[in-house]
């Protein structure tokens, strides 16, 4: 089974609010000091799903694609260390500041260039822009079915059984391959790469494709050609007016809280 996994490198989504800063003029996030970028947390889960499906099928190739700056190589290496076979970095000055829609176009081109695939796996959303649109986009462009927000996938002879997470429960669907599936956190923890694998992955070559290699025109790249122009980016203000409930013991604090809540007619 040949599987393509798309992984994105993003600023650490667990960056505390106090360290999170934005350059409003450039409409960009300022990298927080001492906090390294990470792989979008849903994407190693997609890689994990790919590795398990490949094993269950008894063979195949798992190819990892990432579009991003040169540092996105680390996201690819992480997937290779987990056990993926090939890595491709989509890198071009024209990719700077592009939106999720232009990204979907570029990824679709790259996937066509890879050529052979039974399945494309992605994360349910990238935790930078929190959009969750690229899986649907690549599916529309390639003309293949898309199943979103999956917690489990099984393959039997070219038909996938996918369990989806819904607002009010779960839904099981069946889809023929080739297809795209986006993975949610309910899938479970991905494997942690071992030191030996990290060292082996470091030696693997990652192919680099430019916008021209993908056959993208100048009007398909660049921040000026965003489908969803960004007009402003800022950090919302939050005020702190907290009243810390006093008391000599936890029990007394609880008692005082109950009385405050009653006095404020909240209970």
């Amino acid at each position: 089974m040949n599987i393509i996994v798309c992984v994105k490198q993003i600023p650490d989504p667990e960056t505390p609010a106090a360290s999170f800063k934005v350059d409003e003029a450039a409409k960009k996030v300022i990298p927080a000091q001492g906090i390294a970028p990470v792989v979008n947390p849903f994407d190693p889960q997609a890689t994990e799903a790919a590795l398990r499906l490949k094993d269950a099928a008894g063979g195949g190739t798992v190819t990892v694609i990432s579009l991003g700056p040169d540092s996105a190589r680390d996201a690819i290496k992480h997937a290779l260390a987990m056990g993926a076979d090939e890595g491709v970095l989509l890198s071009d000055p024209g990719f700077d500041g592009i939106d999720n829609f232009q990204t979907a176009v570029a990824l679709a081109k790259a996937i066509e260039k890879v050529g052979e695939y039974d399945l494309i796996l992605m994360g349910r959303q990238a935790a930078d822009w929190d959009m969750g649109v690229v899986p649907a986009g690549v599916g529309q462009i390639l003309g293949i079915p898309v199943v979103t927000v999956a917690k489990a996938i099984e393959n039997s002879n070219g038909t996938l059984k996918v369990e989806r997470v819904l607002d009010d429960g779960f839904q099981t669907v069946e889809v023929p391959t080739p297809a795209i599936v986006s993975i949610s956190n309910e899938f479970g923890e991905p494997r942690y790469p071992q030191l030996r694998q990290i060292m082996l992955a470091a030696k693997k070559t990652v192919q680099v494709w430019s916008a021209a290699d993908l056959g993208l025109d100048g009007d398909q790249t660049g921040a000026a050609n965003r489908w969803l122009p960004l007009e402003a980016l800022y950090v919302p203000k939050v005020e702190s007016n907290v009243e810390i409930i006093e008391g000599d013991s936890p029990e007394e604090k609880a008692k005082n809280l109950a009385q405050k809540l009653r006095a404020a007619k909240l209970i």
Partner: protein
Amino acid sequence: MPGILVVAEATEGEIAPISFELIGAAKQLSAEGGGNVSAVIAGDEALAQQLVAGGADQAFAATNPSLQSGLAEAYLPALNAAIQQSGADIVLLGQTSLGRDVGPALAFANQTAVAMDTVELKLEGGRLHATRNAYGGNARAQVSWKAPLQVATVKAKSFDAPEGVSGSGGVTAIAEGGDPTVKVLGKEKAETTGIRLEDAGIVVSGGRGLGDPSAFGLLEQLAATMKQAAVGASRAACDLGWYPPAQQVGLTGKTVSPNLYIAVAISGASQHMAGMAGSKNIVAINKDADANMVKVSKFAVVDDYKKVIPALIEEIKKLG
């Protein structure tokens, strides 16, 4: 003629509250010059009629049974027909399971963008501008669209449902539907006891700091001492299997805005806040005085929940 199309949804034959919030948003845009408000729903004409009664100028009943799957592939033909017939240049969906699946597919199928999880919408010079959370809620982004059709999903509780303003138009049936390649094999509904999280006046939520799943029993006891209270959880607690994912509050879970939100052993990560920051009054119970949840709360008890919660239950019972 521009116009706004609302993609409404129902659960078990009952129109979901988000649908009326979307009509509320659409009516605001209409007042700013956005044109007529149309609404479409998967179901029969009687169901669609309720959208007109709820303020839409006209409604479409998408009657094709394939739409019951709630999947984009089945919805697209019906929605494209509704866009065509209504002449809408703005489409609003809820940031729900349906909207997350359908919104992006609809946008790409029409060679346009979708802004996901918007919290503010405004019309300027006849074009839509939307504000949405990004970076887990640490940032706000204002966006617009390059292509003529503007698609957005709207976060729950961001707009009020219109009150006492029934539309005057009729209901049109739309028969279009796909023969989807994605087939639904089954659905499992999450068990819910008592009041729905989104409708609760009080929400008591537990996090990873509870340290143990049985503590949710304690939170349920606390909720039982109060009227209209439901129990929620952080994603960390859900991921640990301590509470069902359907009760998760936050960016990738439910949006709640109760009168009172009691966060027990939850740190207040931006992605959790994204689902409850609209709460009118927040109470934090956390042993760490520096936790973000403590900072954003109205009242905070800085101590071990294991001692605080049982005493709180006692005292509330005593107050009667």
